[in-house]
């Protein structure tokens, strides 16, 4: 993945409305007018957010239908999720090992006088 593309994706996610739109689309396709209602925003501003999400690759829009329904492109989220996972795993793995180490360390301290 290109660094620029990842930056575009994160910039797209940095906005709460856009994250909410993604959450809505997770439940299924929606047209612009269907998205306008719950967000209490004007159609042009929703369209602007959709454009950002589309260029970041998070959503795609139907070509054929007049309404051009928006659809979540889940594949694009995988890169992001992979990255988040990496940091979380770093700490969780380290904490797991620390847990084991502390147990072993206490067991040996009780038996002999290690330190």
């Amino acid at each position, binding site marked *: *993945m*290109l*660094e620029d593309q*990842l*930056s575009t994706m*994160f*910039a797209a*996610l*940095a906005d*709460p409305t856009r*994250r*909410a739109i*993604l*959450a809505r689309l*997770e439940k299924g396709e929606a047209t612009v007018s269907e998205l306008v209602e719950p967000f209490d925003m004007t159609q042009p501003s929703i369209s602007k957010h959709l454009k950002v999400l589309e260029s970041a690759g998070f959503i795609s829009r139907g070509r054929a239908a007049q309404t051009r329904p928006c659809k979540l492109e*889940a*594949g694009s*989220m*995988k890169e*992001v*999720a992979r*990255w*988040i*996972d*990496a*940091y*979380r*795993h*770093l*700490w*969780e*793995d*380290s*904490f*797991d*090992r*620390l*847990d*084991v*180490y*502390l*147990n072993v*360390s*206490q067991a040996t301290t009780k038996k002999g006088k290690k330190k």
Partner: protein
Amino acid sequence: MTQDLTNQTPTGAFELTRVFKAPRSLVWKAWSERERLQEWWGPKGCTLKVADLEFRPGGFFHYAMHFSKDAPPMWGRFMYREIIDQERLVWLNSFSNEGCGITRAPFPQAIPLEILNTVTFEERQGMTTLKLQARPHGASGEEVKVFEAMFTSLAEGYGGTLDQLHDHLAKS
């Protein structure tokens, strides 16, 4: 195994809490002594070699992460900013070179150059609670956004934990 509590509240920080069945004095030693740190710190699948540990504010913990015999290690460092005995540790974490100089992440991703980590130690009835908080330090606006989206905001749009997000992505 004690459950981790990963918190994605929109504070711009990554938070993780874990309870250890050990007194605080011992947990503190695990964080502050060279041969003990070597036993547990670092990503999975790597063998950690500590190059240097200067456990004092302004000092460095410099280490090599060996992932395979054939590949050169990846280096990392902590720069300690605040050390309150058995209570609180604050440090800047980054990738580094062999000489302990700061470097970008060795893979093509816009990770913040430095991450400010704070960990607090609390003891109750012989158990120690560690609270870790991580946030970007001195990052550009874009890097901060990256970091926030990464650790905090992303999950809220997906109704809770990252695990759920992960499961969802695995299915789709």
